[in-house]
């Protein structure tokens, strides 16, 4: 098997929350050796959990996406069991250092000297405050590609604004493009498309920096605004508005021209979606749902009766198991599929055959299946070289083998709390 594309390159992951760690993980999946830098003295908000040691009752009261620790138990080291974090943490080595003390900073500077990429999405100003701003880092290693992701970018009036994914989505105008057409945004659930896309863009930014280095022979500062990145994914909407001054706003689940929607299936909270691609599929659908008189209606005529059409489709789908409904619709030439919940997705036969999920044994979380990368390299493949990284898991390898610290230095750094595998007792 050919080597992974980025084999031989080293990446420093100073990411927090979702996008930074995710972007770094994609580079690791592509073969880079990755060192995640954390601190036992500082608990980054919303990264390895919302608290270092959350009470059991609290996590059990939360929705699974935030409180879904293994078996709903915080365990002895909850920070190694948080699902959000562990979704973005495979294939990394982990080291700890207190960046706010000189010996910790010195260790990271030694790591900078032997690395190719640094990734950060720390809040504006944090890296410079630590002495790890681009100028300081470039003095140590001018070959380094420094990826700085932030909500609004490093210039402009909002450059210091703080934002999580929900603020970034609001800034980019997406909330108002995904409401129920008959209700305001408060009836919808939260989403963080800026993080989803931001993690990908962080990885792309690093790759662009590496490509540029082949031309220029040196590293550089690479800036990414996660709001702007989400806007690039909404490009056609912005272009349409600017060209004509009009945009229909949210259509909910509808298309602009084709019959399309989400319909109930038999059972508790089961749903399917469909799109009618052409006249032939429409005619067959009309007969299927018991309205043969609708066959032959042209596109605009059937679209004008969308509410009535929806009611007829829903009456037909609601009495059938979702799989039966989807199969019958597909046989009629309608584009259809089930709305898969997480359980359905994990049991899906197509994903099983493509080995999308990977089973990983984790010392603190146990053995579970995880979603794999969003791509498949048919030549070089994909392997889990390391399970989701535990706090300080590879301090011995990183300090000893990679950075060349002597055993007595390592002992001293351990005594001083830089090297460790648990948050300091005073960390909330």
């Amino acid at each position, binding site marked *: 098997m050919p080597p992974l594309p980025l084999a031989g390159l080293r990446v420093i992951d100073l990411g927090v929350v979702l996008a930074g760690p995710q972007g770094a993980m994609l580079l690791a999946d592509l073969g880079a050796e990755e060192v995640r830098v954390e601190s036992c003295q500082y608990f980054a908000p919303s990264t390895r959990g919302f608290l270092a040691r959350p009470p059991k009752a609290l996590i059990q009261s939360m929705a699974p996406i935030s409180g879904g620790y293994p078996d709903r138990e915080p365990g002895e080291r909850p920070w190694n069991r948080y699902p*959000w974090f562990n979704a973005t943490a495979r294939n990394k080595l982990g080291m700890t250092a207190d960046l706010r003390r000189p010996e910790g900073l010195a260790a990271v500077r030694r790591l900078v000297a032997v690395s190719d990429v640094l990734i950060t999405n720390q809040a504006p100003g944090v890296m410079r405050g630590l002495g790890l701003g681009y100028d300081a880092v470039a003095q140590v290693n001018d070959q380094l590609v420094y990826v700085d992701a932030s909500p609004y970018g490093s210039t402009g009036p909002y450059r210091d604004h703080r934002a999580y994914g929900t603020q970034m989505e609001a800034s980019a105008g997406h909330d108002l493009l995904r409401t129920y057409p008959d209700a305001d945004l408060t009836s919808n659930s939260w989403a963080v498309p800026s993080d989803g896309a931001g993690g990908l863009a962080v990885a792309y930014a690093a790759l662009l920096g590496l490509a540029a280095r082949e*031309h220029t022979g040196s590293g550089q500062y690479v800036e990414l605004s996660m709001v702007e990145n989400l806007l690039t994914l909404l490009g056609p909407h912005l272009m349409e508005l*600017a060209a004509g001054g009009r945009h229909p706003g949210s259509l909910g689940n509808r298309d602009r021209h084709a019959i399309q929607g989400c319909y109930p299936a038999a059972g508790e909270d089961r749903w399917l979606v469909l*799109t009618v691609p052409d006249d032939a599929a429409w005619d067959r659908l009309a007969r299927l749902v018991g309205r043969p008189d609708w066959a032959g209606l042209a596109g605009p005529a059937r679209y004008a009766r969308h509410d009535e059409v929806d009611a007829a489709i829903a009456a037909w789908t609601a009495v059938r198991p979702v799989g039966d409904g989807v199969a019958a619709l597909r046989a009629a030439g309608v*584009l259809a599929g089930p709305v898969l919940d997480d359980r359905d997705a994990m049991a899906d036969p197509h994903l099983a055959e493509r080995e999308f999920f990977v089973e990983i044994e984790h010392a603190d979380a146990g053995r579970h299946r995880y979603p794999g990368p969003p791509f498949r390299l048919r030549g070089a493949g994909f392997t889990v070289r390391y399970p989701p990284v535990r706090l300080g898991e590879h301090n011995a390898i990183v300090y000893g083998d990679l950075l060349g610290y002597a055993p007595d230095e390592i002992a001293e750094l351990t005594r001083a709390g830089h090297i460790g595998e648990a948050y300091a007792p005073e960390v909330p």
Partner: protein
Amino acid sequence: MALSALSGMRVLDLSVGIAGAFAAKLFACYGADVVKVERPAGDPARGWGPFLPDRPDLEGSVPFLDANAGKRGIRLDLGDPRGRAVAVDLIRRSDLVVESFAPGTLARLGLGAELFADTVLLSVSNFGQDGPYRDVPASEIVLYAMGHEMYGTGAPDREPLSVAPLLNLYFAGLSAAVAALGAVLGRRRHGTGEHVDVSIMETLLASIDRRADSLVAYAYCGEPMRRERAAASLVPGYSPCRDGHVAVSVSPAQWPRLVAALGHPDVPGPLPTEPAAAQAFRRVWRSWCAQRDRAGVTEVLQRHGIPCAPVNSLADVDADPHLADRGFFVDLDRDGTVLRHAGPAIRLAGTPGGIPRPAPRLGEHTDEVLGELGYPAADVAALRTAGIV
């Protein structure tokens, strides 16, 4: 012209539709020479609305114009052997070939795997190049329903809800670009070709916009994500103001900052924990927001270090002073119509990107590109007469 990150790189874009096209655009924005190949009738995406107000034709599809900006374009019939010969010449000089035909189509056209052994081939498809769903036709909402966290999006007593149209396809394109550029660097480093297989469904399953996280949480605790009303948090996620809503996040640790920001005699110093105290606070909060506009609330809260942003409309975004200050939008003239493009989101200090040109007219660069391949003008003319180009 300044050197860009991907200067000198050649990309051949055989894709149809949106996801593959956006992946290829992400190379054009950072300096690669991207040539889009379209069938004689044009990319089917040229027929998808919305259209520019005065151009309801092949040159007016907004999704096509956005996803193909920055590229050159040629018209080529891959169904004819003479057209395929041109394609082979183009493939041989390319570092990356992007395609999004139905799986198996390239081989059927006689453009088999051996042709791509030394290059990077990016295949973008609905469900991937193999597996039981490989040939299942799908629309964007079907891919979203099967791949993304649609099940957990919306209100608990209503149907699951979509996101903005095209967002999923653009997201898949960005995912594909990451893998493809990684593979291109791998080819430069190790001399190895690669076939990158991107399933749009899988890009959505791997998204950390809740889906990948909720899949891990499900594996951990056995409970899938559901559509749930946000718990009555102390500060609601969306709060109404005079001119719309703001999105605010306040953690318990930030409570003192909020007290300082509101500066209101009825807001208690300590974090309210009793329901009555929380309710009293929310009354103050609602009226404080209702007296201000979005910009005013955002200014005060940000000054105190609390994450807050206005819930913007597209028109707000279009007129945003911050984006203007950063020169984010790129306005380009295309046949007398000025098109506004979202600019490249990644800014490389030493090797800047951009949008070098608007999307090509159908066949706009056929002569130019075939000339570069060494085809004499008479041969190009003969191919044109035969309807091949």
